[in-house]
């Protein structure tokens, strides 16, 4: 029961998706469109699952005093503040008590976490949490400089939400990305050594392609490098790509088939 029904679902929907490809008729088209829409919708529910997992793991870290546990607070802080920003936005020009509100909410969450993890004195933390919660509610009610927006996406226009995006997400993101410039160098240093035939081929090909950017090389041998590198990219590259693509295609097809036929069940645990 626990495994048969899922397997049946896989079989039915897998086969349907295969058949619908051959049926141009409207009815099949539209079932197809429905199914595709559904996947996204389920995904969003799953995201809630994910957030929950993130929250639990962080709280756990704090409770069990795992190494680096204080940083878990940073994660949680970022999480809750961003969500809060995402659902609130300023009505007028002034923020009013908004920041106080944010702080009280954060304190509430903090206290809730404390109540969850504390050994003794849970009551005290719970009380504090309640206190902060009430005060935040009060601010929410009486301060009309800003408002909650559950209905419309105004939260995404919240200038603080934007600021977090532009000044926290983007810088870290692009810096992480730019780490590649360093790693590509260290990787080249470590790996491009003529240990054996394969390594040497790797090395030589890489050298040719990289040398083409060196202005002094073009003094010596004109655009020979440029031509060779583009030949490399056009001919052997094309061939290898095609071979790999065909292989991957087959692998995917075979795996998909095994999944549909219930031969490969690793994804359900029962390997």
């Amino acid at each position: 029961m626990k495994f048969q029904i899922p397997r049946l679902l896989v079989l039915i929907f897998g086969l349907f998706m295969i058949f619908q490809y051959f049926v141009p008729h409207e009815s099949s088209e539209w079932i197809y469109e429905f199914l595709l829409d559904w996947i996204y919708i389920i995904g969003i529910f799953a995201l809630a699952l994910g957030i929950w997992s993130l929250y639990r793991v962080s709280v756990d870290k704090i409770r069990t005093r795992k190494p680096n546990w204080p940083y878990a607070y940073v994660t949680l802080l970022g999480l809750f503040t961003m969500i809060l920003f995402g659902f609130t936005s300023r009505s007028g020009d002034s923020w009013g008590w908004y920041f106080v509100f944010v702080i009280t909410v954060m304190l509430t969450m903090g206290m809730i976490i404390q109540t969850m993890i504390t050994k003794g004195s849970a009551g005290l933390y719970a009380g504090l949490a309640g206190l902060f919660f009430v005060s935040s509610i009060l601010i929410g009610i009486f301060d009309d400089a800003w408002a909650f927006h559950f209905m419309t996406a105004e939260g995404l226009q919240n200038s603080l939400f934007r600021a977090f995006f532009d000044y926290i997400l983007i810088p870290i993101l692009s810096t992480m990305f730019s780490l590649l410039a360093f790693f590509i160098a260290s990787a080249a240093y470590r790996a491009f050594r003529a240990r054996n035939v394969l390594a040497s081929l790797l090395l030589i090909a890489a050298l040719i392609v990289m040398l083409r950017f060196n202005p002094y090389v073009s003094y010596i041998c004109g655009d020979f490098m440029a031509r060779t590198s583009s030949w490399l990219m056009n001919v052997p590259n094309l061939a290898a790509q095609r071979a790999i693509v065909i292989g991957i295609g087959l692998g995917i097809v075979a795996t998909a088939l095994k999944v549909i036929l219930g031969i490969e069940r690793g994804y359900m645990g029962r390997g």
Partner: protein
Amino acid sequence: MADLGIIVSLVIIFGGLVALFVRSIQAREVDRRIIFLFIFIAVAAPILFPFTFSETATEVVKGVFDKIESLPEGSKVLISFDFDPAMAPEVQPMANAISRHSLEKGHKIIFMSLWATGQALLTHSLANYILPGFPEKQDGIDYVNIGYKAGNEGVLNVIITDFRKMFPTDVNSVLLDSIEVFNGVNSAKDVDLVIAIGGGKPGPKEWVLFIGDPGNIPIGFGVAAVVAPQLYPYYPAQVIGILGGVKGAAEYESELQKTHPRFRDMDTPGLRMMGPQTLAHVVILSFIVIGNVVFFRSRRREKKA
């Protein structure tokens, strides 16, 4: 000041590399942090103290340059901006360089775009990068912007027989017949040179297939580095030259500065971008060399031992 700075940093970089090379002969590995440091300096220095390696144009780039150089004054050049903001950083420099060059040589330029997003970029770059250098040039007499028309390759298919059928007017809805640039230009066949700048689809390839080959009109490419390899096979039979990525732009700009004193002090984004690129590449290459030296030396030691 800037020169001093760059000299110092170059000394640091190459001195360091030599030192590491010496160490490597004693088969001593380099700590990756040192590699990171070198990369950082190699990229940061040229940004801090802008300096440019003098590029020499490779044949492929020179093909375009010489063509524009050799065309008689007043010949018709069609430049197509087939790219979007995402691709712009890479191809904008060459677009500017080529346009300026043609204006300088007194050619009559027809600007157009096969990409909906291209028209805005085109108008913007005309206003901000290309024209400011040439106050004397007038719209309609020295250049004209006929903008974007939907239809991808279809557009090309039509203008090879008749411009006016596809572009009755320019962007300011002036009839083409009343535009001096279009005197004697009925179809793309009457253009002396086509420059296709882009890298997507429709792009350079389409220009060759639908305009260059059927009308045997000389065509030059300015393309993103990624697609350059796929276009090399067209050179030199079907294409007079190709500018590939920042590198191509840099080469063109340096060539421009060599031959035209007027451009000595123009902004050269391509060359500026090449500074860090070149240095970083040199550093990486030398580290590969060092790595191999280390490898072979240590292997010999093992053999001895």
